Structure formats: structure tokens, C-alpha cells
């Protein structure tokens, strides 16, 4: 297939909080190529949407991606002038408000007439009753993951597919704002619209889904989250180029990035990202298709160019997945450092004292104590692993984490770490603490006939 027939699908953000200068090289590369293309922004983690609902409740003009203007603003004019549609789930809990902001940014950039579409229908909080739905066990025993009253829901959003995104683009949208959609749909939508793939053309839909799966975490396929010095080195990790997939009509594609950027694209970076957050590699479920990567072939065909072929697809699953959020527990964390001679023994004594103080005060919290620098993230809450510290550590940081249904006992527990500054072992310093109200999520399966997605163009 001739180069000019390829569609360039780029990614400008892989999560809320990603590098805000990342989209520039992607848009520049697509624009200079002279080929058709689009750019996606994925900024919506599982809990982000519930935080958006809370923000929207406090202010009806909020609830979308807080960094939207910083992320999209700098590339908006170039995208519009070069015919590069922008697709993003940055609408979060309030896609119409995100669209209004983008409209304002476009006007300020001298582009008064762009067509912005909003995908609606993912927010099912007002239309469903939890008793009618089946809890999805695919998350396996998220603690407290059982049914709760519908009235306590903070957010309930179903993962929509790519069809509404494709419809919006076919109707001339230059920007498509969504709330919750399956992340890969942000790429599959523009690809299906461009190539005219049928919605039962499973192999093509699966290929577009794999493109989206590889792009959805941004630089994680181009050298981000990859460097392991001396083992897997990454050139210029401070300037990693975000990914661009050159997709052919048959669904085969080349994963690459803009010339002159840092990072790398290799069979190794692509393999790590193919399997990222994947369970059964023969059946990765999405709203549009069941993706099968067990027969894919990866080939390095040039510097920072990996060709992907052999993607298979199977019919779509009967139900959609929804994430429902509820108010969760209070999580408190506090840390304090010990350094120099006998640091380890002093940190251990500090942890021991904290445990005794919480017991003495009978604070109703679940707790965990870590010795950061010696043993923390690999251990259980009970501290079942043996400390393997052969010699003295230069520095150790004692950490307390507590969880409770009420805020007060959590704060009282953290206050015990503060009290170590006077009452604890010698030489403790650098105490920091924070309390947060967590959001608890439960996944449900929603019959497709209970969901009515739609596309609206903004006036």
C-alpha cells in the first residue's frame, strides 16, 4: 500500500497529569506528512470521573479535565488549519462544558466556526437502578465491592464504544468531546470513520482497537515507563516523543513517533504495552470487538518503526461495563525520616511505638507500618516478609497508613506520628502527613438496550 493511503493516528496525552508539551511534536509530524490523521487525548482514569462529578456539583461549569486548556490550547490552531481532528475523553463528567471552553479557545485563536461534537449517554446515574444490574466479577473481589444503595452513587458511567465518535467525524466534527468511552475507542472511532470499516468487520475493528490500546497510555509505547539503566536505556527521556500509528486500510500499522524526539519505539517497547493491563490475550473485551493478540507479529522495519500485523477480532461482548463510584473510606498517611548511625533501629522503634499508641488509644482504624528504603511496597499489611538489610541503611523513612470510616480517628492516628518529633526516637525529622476521602468503585455489567448513546453538535 502506498504511503499516502495511510492514516496517521497520534496520541497527545495518556493520562490526566501527562506532559502538557507532548502533543506539539505529534501534531507537527502529522501536519508535515501531508497525510490524513487525527490526534487523541486520553485523560480519564477510573476515579477521575467521580472527582469530576464532585467538581460539577460545586460548579456547573466545571467537571471536565482541569488541564484541558493547557493541553489542547497550544495545538488547537495547527490541528484545525491542517484538518487534524481532535478526539478526547477530556469531557469527563461535563462534556458540554469542555466543548464550550474549546469553542472559546478556538475563537481566541481566530477560528470562530469550528464544528465541535459531544458524545453523550455514558452517564447513567439518573437512568439506572443498581438492583437491576449484575456486578462484574472481572475485578475479582475489590474490597467492599458489593452492592450499595443507588442513592449513594457519586458517579455511574458506562464505557461507550467507537461508533458515536465515528458518526460525529463523518458528520464533519473537527473536535469530538466524550465522557467515558473505552480508551481504545478514541483511536478506533477516527480509523473506522476514515476507512469505512464495517461494525462487524471484526479483524479490522480489532486492529483499530490494538492501535488505541497501544496509544492510550501515551509515551508508554515510545520509551516511557520503560527505562532500566544498563538494561533498557532510553535516549533523552526528558523529551520522549508521543506515539503515532501509521495505519493502513487492512488494519496493519506501523508504530512510530516524530523524528527528532527522545524515547524509542522497538519490539520491546511495543510488547510491554501490548500486554499492559491485559488479562486473557485471546479475549480483550471492548464495547466494539473482542481483541485477540495471540497471533500478532511485531517487526522492526526501521529506526523507531515497528510494524504490527496479524491482529484478530471476534464478535463484541453482549454487555457493556460500567464503573459506579461511591464515597469510600478515609485514608491517612504520615511519614518521618531517620538518617545516619543506627537509623534502621530508630525507625523500627518509631514504628513499634506508633503501633502501641494506636492500640492504647483504641483508635478504630485499619493500619499498616512501612520502613521505606528497607521494605515497603512488596510487603503485606501484616509485615510478613523478612527484612533483608545486610548493612546499615543511610536513611530510612517510617510510614504509617490508616483507613477508617470516620475522619477523626484517622487524623488522631496521624497526630501520633507528629508527636514523635518530641516523644519518639532520637533524630526524627521531615514529618509529612495527609488525609483524603477515597472514592470506592464497583464495576457492573449493563445490557446494551439500557444505554442510549448520542452525538450532539454544539451551537
Amino acid at each position, binding site marked *: 500500500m502506498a504511503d499516502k493511503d495511510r492514516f496517521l493516528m497520534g496520541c497527545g496525552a495518556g493520562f490526566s497529569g501527562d506532559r502538557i508539551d507532548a502533543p506539539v511534536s505529534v501534531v507537527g509530524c502529522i501536519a508535515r506528512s501531508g497525510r490524513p490523521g487525527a490526534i487523541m487525548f486520553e485523560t480519564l482514569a477510573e476515579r477521575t470521573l467521580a472527582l469530576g462529578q464532585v467538581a460539577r456539583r460545586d460548579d456547573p461549569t466545571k467537571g471536565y479535565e482541569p488541564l484541558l486548556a493547557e493541553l489542547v490550547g497550544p495545538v488547537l490552531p495547527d490541528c484545525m488549519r491542517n484538518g487534524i481532528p481532535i478526539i478526547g475523553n477530556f469531557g469527563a463528567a461535563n462534556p458540554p462544558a469542555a466543548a464550550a471552553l474549546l469553542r472559546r479557545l478556538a475563537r481566541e485563536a481566530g477560528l470562530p466556526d469550528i464544528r465541535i461534537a459531544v458524545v453523550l449517554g455514558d452517564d447513567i446515574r439518573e437512568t439506572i437502578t443498581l438492583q437491576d444490574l449484575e456486578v462484574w466479577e472481572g475485578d475479582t473481589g475489590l474490597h467492599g465491592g458489593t452492592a450499595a444503595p443507588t442513592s449513594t452513587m457519586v458517579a455511574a458511567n458506562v464505557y461507550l464504544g467507537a461508533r458515536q465518535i465515528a458518526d460525529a467525524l463523518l458528520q464533519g466534527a473537527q473536535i469530538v468531546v466524550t465522557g467515558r468511552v473505552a480508551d481504545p475507542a478514541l483511536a478506533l472511532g477516527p480509523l473506522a470513520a476514515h476507512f469505512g470499516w464495517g461494525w462487524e468487520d471484526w479483524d479490522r475493528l480489532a486492529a483499530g482497537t490494538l492501535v488505541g490500546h497501544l496509544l492510550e497510555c501515551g509515551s508508554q509505547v515510545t520509551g516511557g515507563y520503560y527505562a532500566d539503566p544498563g538494561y533498557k536505556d532510553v535516549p533523552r527521556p526528558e523529551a520522549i516523543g508521543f506515539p503515532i500509528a501509521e495505519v493502513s486500510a487492512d488494519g496493519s500499522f506501523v508504530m512510530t513517533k516524530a523524528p527528532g524526539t527522545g524515547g524509542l519505539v522497538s519490539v520491546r517497547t511495543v510488547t510491554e504495552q501490548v*500486554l499492559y493491563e491485559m488479562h486473557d490475550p485471546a479475549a480483550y473485551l471492548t464495547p466494539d470487538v473482542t481483541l485477540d493478540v495471540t497471533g500478532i507479529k511485531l517487526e522492526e522495519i526501521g529506526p523507531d518503526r515497528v510494524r504490527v500485523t496479524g491482529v484478530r477480532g471476534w464478535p463484541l461482548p453482549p454487555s457493556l461495563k460500567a464503573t459506579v463510584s461511591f464515597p469510600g473510606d478515609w485514608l491517612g498517611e504520615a511519614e518521618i525520616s531517620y538518617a545516619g548511625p543506627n537509623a534502621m533501629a530508630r525507625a523500627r522503634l518509631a514504628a513499634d511505638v506508633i503501633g502501641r499508641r494506636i492500640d492504647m488509644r483504641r483508635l478504630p482504624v485499619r493500619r499498616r507500618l512501612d520502613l521505606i528504603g528497607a521494605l515497603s511496597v512488596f510487603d503485606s499489611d501484616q509485615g510478613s516478609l523478612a527484612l533483608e538489610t545486610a548493612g546499615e541503611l543511610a536513611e530510612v523513612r517510617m510510614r504509617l497508613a490508616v483507613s477508617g470510616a470516620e475522619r477523626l480517628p484517622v487524623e488522631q492516628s496521624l497526630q501520633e506520628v507528629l508527636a514523635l518529633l518530641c516523644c519518639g526516637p532520637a533524630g526524627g525529622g521531615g514529618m509529612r502527613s495527609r488525609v483524603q476521602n477515597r472514592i470506592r468503585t464497583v464495576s457492573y455489567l449493563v445490557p446494551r438496550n439500557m444505554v442510549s448513546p448520542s452525538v450532539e453538535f454544539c451551537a
Partner: protein
Amino acid sequence: MSAATVPLHEIAHGRAGDKGNRLNVSVIAYSAELWPLILAQVTEDRVHDLFRHRGATRVVRYVLPNLRALNLVIDEVLEGGVNSSLNLDVHGKTNSFRVLGMPVEVPDALLPRLAAMRRG
């Protein structure tokens, strides 16, 4: 043929991701020669042993010869995941390197070439 014991990290790379209370870790051979060693030694039981202390109930190993990779899916290992975990790493993302710390046996004849294999 004599063999040396080295961390899996010498012959494989990988990445961890979470979905709820379930963790997946990929283990990818640095070269075709190393793939049979990984296939033979990185078993469901041995991986389970690395996570029993955190309450893991099951490990399923998916084999992808086309990618010279294993996908290890570990159930109930994240103390409830982002809903309720007290672990500093609520998503469990550091655990790729717990798996890569597993000791494996590598034939002596391959040892001098491991660094070259990693460079690819």
C-alpha cells in the same frame, strides 16, 4: 551442563498493570535463546509463591510464543486495590520487579552473552 542462578531480570523484562484487585505482569525474553528458560522456570506456582503473603488466590499464566512473552494474571493480590489498599503502591505497579527478582538458572555457556542479548 552446569548452570548459574541469576535474577530473572538478567534475561527478561516486563511491566505490571492493575484492574481492580487483580494484577497482571508481563515477562518478556530478551532473546529467542532465553525464551525456553523462561517458559520452563517462570511457572504459575513459583509466581504464586512470590505473592502468597499478600493473599493472592490464583495465578494464571498465558503463553505468547509470538511475542516470546508470558502474561501472568494474579488474583486478589492488591489488598482491595485502589478502593482500600494501605500499600504505598496502591496499583501494585512496582510488582513487575518483584517477579523480575525471581531466581532462575541459566546455563554457564550463555552467561558471557547475556549483556549482548539485552542490547539486542
